[in-house]
């Protein structure tokens, strides 16, 4: 089989040996296309690497001038973020506090609900139920985030205001809750995959000891799939931190150092959107501050993604 004669990059070997005449011409032409295709496919696969390099390059070069003006200490410890004011302050923790609050609320919804749903789908539901539920979850995942933002601002917030009198029109609670449901399908399906990867033998051993389904699920399956489940929640956290439109619409655009969910506050992503909506002069410090904020966001999500990726790979190799 030709596969056994591939070179280091997986390319097929060069032209076929001489035969002569039209046949040789055909074989040469065919060999040319064979090699040409292989190079072209490698080039296409490398695009993803160039995208990553491009992201890192842009974030570094565009935010480098910013860090020449603002010291890293101010950037990380100041609690004011007012880049367009006369007396500009650049404490990114102002934006991070809102990001963490909203993501925390989202996870408080998505972790227990996602775990319960995953256990139900993997250990309790009949295959027919699972087959109908999964498409429903996919549809839920496919709803555009602007629509969720609209829903959080004009449906969930007024609804919550009837229970919580002091709730501001822009608050972090409503977008947090909506975002929790938004990432639920993702966390549930990744953790369910991890649970279904647990070998049947472990469950059967549990049943042989007289365990109930619930016990098998919580004492056998969940611990065995723990790295995969953790990966699901870390990847979900990364999504919550990077989610943009829901918070930009419903959490307000006022930088505010607070962890109080009833107040409105701009997250990192909402700040980027807000600045992009205005006309930013290219090269101004406000323009650069967008990239500095983006850099923080990128580093946070990169960290989560790498941990999640590592954990996911581990559970796949375990069984």
């Amino acid at each position, binding site marked *: 089989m030709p596969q056994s004669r591939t070179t280091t990059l997986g390319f097929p070997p060069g032209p076929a040996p001489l035969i002569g005449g039209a046949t040789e011409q055909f074989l040469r032409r065919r060999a040319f296309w064979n090699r040409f295709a*292989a190079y072209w496919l490698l080039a296409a696969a490398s695009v993803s690497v160039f995208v990553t390099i491009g992201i890192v390059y842009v974030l570094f070069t565009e935010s480098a001038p910013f860090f020449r003006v603002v010291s890293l200490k101010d950037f990380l410890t100041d609690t004011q973020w007012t880049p367009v004011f006369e007396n500009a302050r650049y404490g990114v923790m102002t934006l991070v506090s809102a990001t963490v609050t909203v993501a925390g609320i989202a996870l408080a919804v998505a972790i227990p609900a996602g775990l319960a749903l995953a256990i*139900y789908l993997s250990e309790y539901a009949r295959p027919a139920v699972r087959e109908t539920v999964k498409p429903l979850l996919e549809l839920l995942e*496919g*709803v555009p985030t602007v629509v969720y933002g609209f829903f959080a601002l004009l449906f969930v917030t007024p609804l919550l205001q009837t229970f919580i009198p002091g709730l501001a029109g822009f608050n972090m609670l409503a977008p947090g809750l909506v975002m929790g449901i938004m990432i639920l399908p993702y966390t549930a399906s990744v953790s369910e995959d991890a649970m279904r990867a647990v070998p049947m033998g472990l469950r059967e051993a549990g049943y042989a000891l007289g365990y109930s389904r619930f016990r098998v699920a919580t004492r056998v399956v969940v611990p065995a799939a723990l790295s995969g489940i953790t990966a699901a929640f870390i990847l979900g956290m990364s999504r919550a931190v990077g989610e*943009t439109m829901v918070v930009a619409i419903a959490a307000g655009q006022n930088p505010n150092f607070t962890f109080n969910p009833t107040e409105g506050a701009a997250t990192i992503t909402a700040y980027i*959107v807000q600045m992009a909506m205005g006309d930013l002069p290219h090269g101004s410090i406000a323009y650069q501050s967008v990239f500095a904020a983006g850099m923080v966001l990128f580093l946070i999500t990169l960290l989560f993604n790498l941990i999640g990726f590592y954990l996911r790979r581990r559970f796949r190799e375990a069984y």
Partner: protein
Amino acid sequence: MSVESHVLGPEQRSFQALVAANRRTDVLMASVGILVLAVAAALLTAVMVDLISSGWPRLVNPDFYTSFPSRKPEQAGIISAMVGTSLVMLVTAFISIPLAVAAGIYLEEYAPKNWLTDIIEINVSNLAGVPSIIYGLLALGLFVYGFGLGETILTAGLVLALLILPVIIVATREAIRSIPKDLREAAYGLGADKWQTVSHYVLPAARPGILTGAIVGLARAIGEAAPVITIGALTFIAFLPPAPVQATPPFINFDWLMSPFTVMPIQLFNWVSRPQAAFHINAAATGVVLMVMTLLMNGLAIYIRFKLRQHQRS
């Protein structure tokens, strides 16, 4: 247990209690799972009902679909947003599908096990987790200012194409992986070389799976607002880009690629951000159109996958 409880000893009675308790927790757990599902389904319904009921007055007015945005909410429409979305999607599909399919083929059929392949694989899964707004910053720094493409349809199409690349790559790989090895061996046995095998046998067999991934990816791109806002797309576009086809030779023109534009999610965002409630009606109506488009596309993808699975089973 049909044994009467008065003849049971203390251990047996506690055993019975244990069985009953176990059954209770099982029922409880299953109900919690079903409850979560019900809440999720109720939310999807609530979103739909809320949008339709709030947007109804504009939704049933045909002028809404043929008017440009306006300062007067009752005259504003989504024609420029719909045309913008269609043209941006055209660019996105033309760039992302060939690139992602080629990358998927390389990773499944060609890539040897070495560090380069590892880097590409880790990259693809990492890119899938990069927030969409970061792609927007990439486009702002590189495409808009670096390459001087400006805030155009081409820039938006490019950035959305890069954004959905991982989605289509993963779908392509899964589709190719599910093709049995026999098919390849049969092709090789007939004397086909690698490229002939891949392009004539493997790729056609994997087509439905790839199509599913492409549809899901494009549905996601249609609903994405963040990266397009970041590149500085305008919200008030009271004209249409130049038409892609014309009556005089060469019949096709590409001027529209460099035209300013708006898309539906941005139009929605703009209207929902205004304080006047009348604009919120427009936002809701736009949301319905957007939802219908993405739900139809996702539904189509689910249907194709369902048919495919039926076909594979038989």
